[in-house]
C-alpha cells in the first residue's frame, strides 16, 4: 500500500473491562465436581480465566463476559446447571440510534484497528431508517474493474478540500493565475468537535494527534487552541466576530471553519485577506432549506460547506426531518442542476456512526464526512444519557491523550479498510468517483416497489 494510505494501527486494549453481550450463569448448586468438567474444555479459554481469579485476586472477576456463547458448556454440563444469559449491563447500553451492536463493534475496532469479521450470515433487521435502507452495488462478471484482492492496496481514498475551478484563468498579462489552494486528505474524513460534553483539553489533544497520524484535520473551537500550537492538523472553528483577534493563527492555518450567518462571506473574505493560501469553509446546520443556502453561499464566493445534521443523521429544525440519505441527495442534486457541484466541496457530519455511513454519505453526495461521536465511543463512551462531564462513568475527560489518539487512529484505520472493501466490491478505484454515484446504489423504496409492488397486503 502506498505509504500515504497506510494507517498505523496498534492493538490498544480498553481502559475498562468490556461490557460483553453474554455471560454464563453457573448455578453451582448440584455441581457434581466432575473431573472432566466442561469448563476445562472451553474452546475460547474463558472459564480457565475465571478460575484464575480464585488463585489471583488481581485477575479479572467477570471474564465470562468475554463468552462467545458457543453453548458447549451449557449443553455439555453433566448436571445441566449452567445457563446462558444476556449480560444485564449490556442491555442498558446505547440509545435508539447508537445500538448495542454499534457500540460493541466500534469498541472492538478501536481496540484492534481491524475489520470486524464474523460467520453464519447477517444478523440484523432487514432494513432500518436512513442509511440502513440502501445497499451499495458490486461489480459482477460484466464489470470487473479491478485486479482482485491484490489490487486493493492501490485504491485511492484521498479527497480534495477547497475550491475547484472548472477552468484555468489567465490574468491581464496573459500569465496563468494562481489556482486557489486545495488540501488533499488521504482519507475522506475530518475529525469533528465532540457532539456532547465539553470538548476538553485531553480530547482535543488526542483528536489533533490522531488527525496528524491520519494526515487529516481536526476541527477545534479557536478558543481551545493554545498559543503557538502547530496548526498542520487543526481546523480552527470561528464564530466570526473574533477573527480579528487571531491574525497570527490565521496566517498559519490550512483550513478554517466559520459558523454560517448573515456575515459569513465577509468573514471568509477577511480571513483570505490575511492568508490567501487558506481554505475557509462555512459550517451550517443541515436544515430543510439547506440546498437554497448552499447555492446562495456559492454565489457569495464560498466553495467549501460543512453541513451539520443532528446526532442521529437527520435534518435540524424540521417538523418531519429527513435522514441524510434523502436530504443529502437533494442538496447534491440541486448543485448538479445549478452546474456548480464540481466547484464545491461538501463536508457532511452528524450521525456518521459506522464506516458504511461514510461510504453511503459519499454516494448520496458528500465529498467527505466529519466524524465526531465515534471518536468518543472509541474511548469507551457508552452514549449514556447522564451529565456528560461531571458524572461521566468512564471519566472521558481524564483520558491519556496518546492512548486516546491511538484508539481513534485504530477506529479510523478500520473504517478506512472497510471503505476499501466497499470500493473494491464496487470496482471503483477512487473514492472521488464514489461521490454522488447513486446509480451504483440501491434504495429500499425502489427495490420494494419493483419486487413486491404487485403483492397485496
Amino acid at each position, binding site marked *: 500500500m502506498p505509504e500515504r494510505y497506510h494507517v498505523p494501527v496498534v492493538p490498544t486494549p480498553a481502559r475498562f473491562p468490556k461490557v460483553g453481550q*453474554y455471560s454464563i450463569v453457573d448455578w453451582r448448586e448440584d455441581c457434581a465436581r466432575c473431573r472432566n468438567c466442561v469448563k476445562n474444555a472451553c*474452546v*475460547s479459554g474463558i472459564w480457565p480465566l475465571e478460575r484464575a481469579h480464585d488463585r489471583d485476586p488481581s485477575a479479572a472477576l467477570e471474564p465470562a463476559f468475554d463468552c*462467545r*456463547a*458457543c*453453548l*458447549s458448556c*451449557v*449443553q*455439555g*454440563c453433566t*448436571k*445441566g446447571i449452567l445457563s*446462558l*444469559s*444476556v449480560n444485564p449491563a449490556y442491555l442498558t447500553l446505547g440509545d435508539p440510534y447508537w445500538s448495542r451492536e454499534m457500540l460493541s463493534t466500534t469498541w472492538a475496532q478501536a481496540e484492534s484497528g481491524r475489520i*470486524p*469479521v*464474523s*460467520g*453464519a*450470515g*447477517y*444478523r*440484523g*433487521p*432487514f432494513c432500518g431508517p436512513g442509511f440502513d435502507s440502501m*445497499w*451499495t*452495488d*458490486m*461489480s*459482477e*462478471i*460484466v*464489470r*470487473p474493474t479491478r*485486479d*482482485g*484482492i491484490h489490487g486493493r492496496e492501490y485504491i485511492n481514498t484521498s479527497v480534495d478540500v477547497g475550491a475547484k475551478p472548472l477552468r484555468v484563468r489567465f490574468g491581464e498579462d496573459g500569465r496563468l493565475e494562481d489556482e486557489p489552494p486545495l488540501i488533499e486528505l488521504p482519507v475522506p474524513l475530518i475529525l469533528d468537535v465532540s457532539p456532547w460534553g465539553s470538548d476538553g483539553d485531553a480530547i482535543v489533544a488526542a483528536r489533533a494527534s490522531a488527525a496528524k497520524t491520519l494526515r487529516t484535520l481536526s476541527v477545534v473551537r479557536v478558543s481551545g487552541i493554545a498559543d503557538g500550537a502547530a496548526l498542520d492538523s487543526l481546523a480552527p472553528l470561528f464564530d466570526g466576530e473574533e477573527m480579528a483577534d487571531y491574525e497570527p493563527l490565521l496566517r498559519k492555518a490550512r483550513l478554517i471553519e466559520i459558523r454560517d450567518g448573515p456575515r459569513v462571506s465577509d468573514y471568509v473574505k477577511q480571513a483570505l485577506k490575511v492568508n490567501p493560501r487558506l481554505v475557509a469553509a462555512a459550517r451550517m446546520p443541515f436544515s430543510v432549506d439547506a440546498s437554497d443556502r448552499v447555492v446562495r453561499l456559492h454565489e457569495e464566493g464560498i466553495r467549501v460547506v460543512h453541513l451539520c445534521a443532528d446526532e442521529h443523521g437527520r435534518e435540524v429544525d424540521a417538523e418531519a426531518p429527513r435522514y441524510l440519505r434523502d436530504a443529502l441527495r437533494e442538496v447534491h442534486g440541486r448543485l448538479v442542476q445549478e452546474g456548480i457541484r464540481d466547484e464545491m466541496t461538501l463536508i457532511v457530519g452528524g450521525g456518521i456512526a*459506522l464506516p*458504511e455511513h461514510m*461510504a*453511503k454519505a459519499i454516494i448520496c453526495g458528500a465529498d467527505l464526512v466529519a466524524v465526531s461521536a465515534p471518536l468518543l465511543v472509541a474511548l469507551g463512551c457508552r452514549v449514556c444519557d447522564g451529565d456528560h462531564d461531571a458524572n461521566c462513568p468512564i471519566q472521558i475527560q481524564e483520558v491519556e491523550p496518546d492512548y486516546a489518539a491511538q484508539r481513534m487512529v485504530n477506529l479510523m484505520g478500520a473504517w478506512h479498510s472497510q471503505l476499501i*472493501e*466497499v470500493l*473494491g*466490491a*464496487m470496482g471503483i478505484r477512487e473514492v472521488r468517483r464514489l461521490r454522488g454515484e447513486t*446509480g451504483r446504489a*440501491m434504495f429500499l423504496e425502489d*427495490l*420494494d416497489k*419493483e*419486487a*413486491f409492488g404487485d*403483492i*397485496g*397486503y
Partner: protein
Amino acid sequence: MTSVIERTAPPVEAERRNGPPPATVERVVRPMPDRYRNPIGRYKVRRSADCRSCAVCVEVCPYGVHVKPAGYNLPLRPRDYLCIGPKCAETDHYCVEHCPNKALSVGRNPTADAIGDPRWTSDLLLATWRQAETGSMASVGDLEYRHGASGGGFDALRFRFPESPVSVAPEEVDTRLDLNRRDDGRPRVAIDVPIYGGGMSFGSVSIHVMIARARAATAWNTFTCTGEGGYPERLQPYDDHVITQVATGLFGVREETIQRVRIVEFKYAQGAKPGLGGHLLGDKNTPDVARMRQAVAGNALFSPFPFHSVYSVEDHKKHLDWIKAISPHALTSVKVSTPTDVDMVAVGSYHAGAHIVHIDGSYGGTGAAPDIAKKNIAMPIEYAIPRVHRFLVDEGVRDEIVLIASGGLRTADDVLKAIALGADGAVIGTSEIVALGCIRCGNCESGRGCARGIATTDRELIKQVDIDWATQRLINMYAAWRERMVDVLARMGMKSVSELRGRHDCLRRVRWGEEDVHD
C-alpha cells in the same frame, strides 16, 4: 416414526465413473437426538429436593419430559426441551399440578431467550433442531418455524391460500425439480426436492460435515456442493450427488474432479461477501487442507474477485465451454451475487450456455465475512428474484434456464416464498449447519475455529460431529421441510411445486409491528 418415500434413481453413466462404486443411503426418517447432553428448549423444568420419587409426573406427562427407567430409584433429570411450557396448566396432565410434593416448577429457559437474532430467532433455531431430530413438523409445536423477525423481506411475506382450493391430497404433490431445461443433449437431471446444499469448502467445514451432507443429498436424490477447496476422495462414493465448484482461486480444481460430477458450478461471487474474494485464514489452512488445495500449509489463502479470465459474456461462455468440453455429461451452473444488474448477469449466463443460474443474496453465507459486506453490499435475495425472473421472461428464455435462489433462506417457507417470487428452487446452507448443531455464534474463523466442531478442521474438534448422526439429522430436516412444502402446496391446490413459480398472487405482505393473523 419411520417413513419411506419413493425415490427416483439418478441415471449413472458408466463411463463417467472411475472411482469407488456409488453408495446408496436409505431415505428413512429416524429419531436422532441432539448430540449434547442438555438439548435446549424454550422451557426449563426444575425438580427440587422435595421430590419423593413417586413418579406421578412420569405417568402424567405425555411429552416424555419425565422419565424413570426401570430399576432406577429416582427419575432422570427432566428432559425439559420436550416441555410445552406453562400453557400445559390448561390441560389435565400438568406435572406441576399433579406433583404431590410441589417439587416441580416450569419457567422459560433463559438460554433460549438469550440465543438468536432478528434473522434467526431463538424459535427458528429451536424449531430447526426439532425438525432435524424428528423429521416431522408436528414436533415443532408452537415454536415459530415459518419466519424470523427481521421485519422485511421473507419475514414480511405470508402465503395467501385460496378460499376454496382444488382438493389435492398430500401424496399427489410433486416436489421434483428438473435442472436441465435446455435441449442440448446433456442428461436430464432431476432432484426430488426443490433444494440442494450450497458450497462449503473443505477447510471451511470439516470432512465429517461434508460427507454427511453428501450422504443426505444422496438419500434425497439432490445435491451438495464442495465449495472451493478441492474434492476430498472420501466424497467419491457420492459423486452423483456432488456439485463441484470452480471458483476464482481454482483451488483443488482438476480435470478428473470435473469429470466425476453431474453438475459443475462456476462461482463468480457469493452473497456473504459480494464483490470480495474468499479468504481462508492461515490457522485453518492445516496440512490436510493445504494438500487438498494444492497449497502451502499455514498460509492464508485468497480466492480473488473476480475471475481474471472473465471480462465479458463471451469470456464467460469460454469458461463454460471449457467445462462442457472436459465433461460431456455435466450440467453447468453459474453462481453470482446480486448487484443492480443481476438480471443482465442472469441473461448473460443463459447466453453463455449455463443450465442453472444461481443468485446468492447478500444476507446469507455460512463462512466468515466482513460485517460491512454482509449488511450493505448487494441487494437482499427477495428483491433480486423477481427482477431476474421477469427479465428472463421478457427475454423469452425463462423456460430454458433454471433459476436457483440462495442467501438468507432459513426455512421451508422461505423456499416456497422464493419460488412464488419467481425462482425454480433454492440452495440452503446455514439451515443445514444449524441442523448439525450450529448455534450461529459467528466465531467460525477465530482461534481453533468452530467450538461445535462444524466449521473447523481442528482434528480434536471435528470429532464432535459423527457422520451417521449428522447424515440422519440432515435427512430428517429435509423430510420435515418437504412435509411443510407439500402441506402448503396442497392447501394452495397445487399438484406440483413448479405451479407456484412466479405466483405473486399466492403471497401477501404484512406490515411489521401490526397484529399478524396467521393462516
